[in-house]
């Protein structure tokens, strides 16, 4: 039996390493993911960042973090993590730094870096077995540049570079990449998806990663009020709907064995999730695009049918 520090939300560590006051948007799901992640990891951390929303956490001369930070470049945060990890190891082995100076090395990027421009660097770091954490805050777009399409943008989402038009009423017609599966194909010891709305599951997964040597890869859906188009106060509500509609499954893979960690008893219709966000408004107004909504729902049903068969899950799909 594995033991966990985290049984209820009351077990959330009190210590905050990401302190209030920074230039990020109100209601940023990504920032909340970083804050929770940090609470579980504790203080001895160096964050290695790629270009994205989180880059703005650290605007000279201020820092909201009580830990170390390095901004690298858009494409190569995992390589930055490699250099730091290797340097800490070689300096410790040569006795040039004390063991108490060891740090957890954590890459933090958005989906643009994780799914697109930084995928090669990530792939290589995982294949080398680098002992690091990767936290992707997935707002399903190039959010920091104003919400352009990334290869994480779901089918049917509007974006600034896939605006719905009369000729193309769908918005983005591409398929969101399965980063969980891409990462998993590299055989890392631990991969997990996260939602800040499911805090206990979130904390347990980070905790689990802390007991594993090697690459520990996490992707957190990051509700984005300005990009997705909803009121900042509703971030947790939107993420909760992502869980309840099954569009963002909560799962983990320990040494390649995939398991859903929290499963909704009965899926709510995905339209309830879509309807909360301006990026999907064109699927409802001026006329409902039933085919597009059905395609999204069918995708979710197919996913959960396969998962239920594989893991013997009890889950009621949407008719």
């Amino acid at each position, binding site marked *: 039996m594995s033991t966990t520090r985290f049984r209820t939300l009351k077990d959330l560590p009190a210590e905050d390493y990401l302190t209030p006051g920074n230039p990020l948007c109100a209601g940023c799901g990504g920032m909340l993911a970083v804050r929770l992640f940090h609470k579980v990891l504790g203080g001895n951390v160096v964050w290695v960042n790629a270009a994205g929303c989180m880059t703005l956490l650290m605007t000279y001369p201020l820092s909201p973090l009580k830990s170390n930070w390095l901004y690298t*470049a858009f494409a190569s945060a995992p*390589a930055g993590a490699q*250099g730091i990890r290797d340097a800490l190891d070689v300096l410790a082995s040569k006795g040039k730094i004390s063991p108490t100076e060891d740090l957890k090395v954590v890459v933090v990027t958005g989906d643009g870096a994780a799914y697109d421009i930084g995928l090669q660097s990530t792939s290589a770091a995982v294949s080398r077995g680098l002992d690091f954490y990767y936290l992707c805050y997935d707002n399903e777009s190039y959010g920091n540049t104003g919400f352009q399409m990334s290869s994480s943008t779901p089918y049917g989402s509007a974006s600034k570079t896939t605006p719905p038009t009369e000729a193309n009423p769908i918005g983005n017609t591409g398929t969101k990449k399965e980063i969980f599966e891409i990462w998993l194909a590299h055989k890392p010891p631990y991969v997990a998806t996260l939602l800040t709305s499911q805090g206990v599951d979130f904390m347990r997964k980070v905790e689990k990663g802390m007991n594993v040597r090697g690459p520990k890869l996490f992707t957190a859906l990051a509700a984005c009020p300005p990009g997705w188009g909803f009121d900042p106060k509703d971030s947790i509500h939107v993420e909760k709907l992502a869980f309840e509609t099954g569009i963002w499954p909560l799962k983990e893979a320990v040494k390649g064995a995939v398991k859903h960690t929290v499963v909704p008893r009965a899926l709510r219709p995905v339209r309830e999730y879509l309807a909360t966000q301006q990026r999907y408004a064109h699927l409802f107004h001026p006329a409902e695009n039933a085919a597009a909504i059905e395609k999204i729902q069918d995708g979710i049903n197919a996913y959960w049918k396969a998962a239920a068969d594989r893991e013997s899950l009890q889950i009621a799909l949407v008719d």
Partner: protein
Amino acid sequence: MTEAKLLTGNGAAAWGARLAAVDYVPAFPITPQTEIIETISKWVRDGSMDAKMVQLDSEHSMLTAAGSASLTGARVFTATSSQGLLYGLEMLYNISGWRAPIVLVNVSRALAAPITLEPDHNDVLAARDTGFIQLHAETCQEVVDLVLLGYRIAEDMRVRLPAIVNLDGFFLSFTRERVDLPEADKVASFLPPYRPTNPFSAERPVAKGSAVMEGDTYSYFRYHMHASSLRALDVLKEVSREYEKLFGRAYGPVEPYMMDGAEYVLVMSNSFTTLGRKVVDDLRARGVAAGLLKLRMIRPFPADEVAAQLKGRRAVAVFDQDIAPGSGGIIYPEVVAALYHEADRPKVVMPVIGGLGGKRLTLKELESIFDELRRAEKGGTVRPPGMFLMRQEELERVRTEMVTAGGDVPA
């Protein structure tokens, strides 16, 4: 005891890293650099070098890891060439902005397209504005010495900038020469352990590479980097004196050759300089007042030293083994700018371009530069756009190839 070895330029670069007792070597292979990382891999694996070596997935990743390891406190060595240098170019600006004093050996190779293997300096000169110190080597001996001097300068707190040591692919990388290897214990006294500035720390966390949103802050840091780079000139002179005391070899920012009484001067750098020396000897034997000025330090550009050496001469040719299409040679305007405010500047400063893609350079061609200098000096002008070296038989060979390729051959 100094140990004499027969080493290639690549072997000398690897020995530089070994003698500098580097902690970390991130790597990615590219011709003609590979022998450097293969040699170091072997040493690390057989225990003769106490360092960690990791092969990355690209030069961009390699340089990112190099910079981040340096910020953590490791002395870092890495090497690349050509396309690789350009693939990682973004990170060169970051590494210098981080003030991470790594040493990067570039084995010069001309740039695609068309893709090729042999050297010219368009690769390393594309990095001229990155903030890296640049030291260019003529011989294999210089390669090992400049790597050691490179660390000393880069890590000096008056500079604290990364350094590139350049050597020519093929002509130096694969050519064996006698190299006197400095003794490890003496190197240790010349090059004290690297002391990082505010490394990442559990005790005292730091933020590096923070975003700067205001132009005044950005400008301040960039001006500061420029001032630090300029200080590398005096630091080189200072540490070179120390190096000479220990090892008997001195390396200034420029190296004059037969400059006493020289009226016609050829300015050049890197391995072809050896040919330039020979031509100057030949011309001197025939009574021509020829001289040569080798540029060793390209960044910071040693403008004062260049002006001091070239003022009062009749005519100067600047040999660029590189080409900036639409402008000309890359070093030429820097030499001209260095001379502009000298009252007795040479009447003629002539641009010459040659050796692109490793194109052979004959002594006769080098001599023709001096012929043209004397003609231009008499006429008081340089025939625009200067000289582009190519021999008749080379031109004919290219034309034959164009016929073979099925193309139209221009007249």
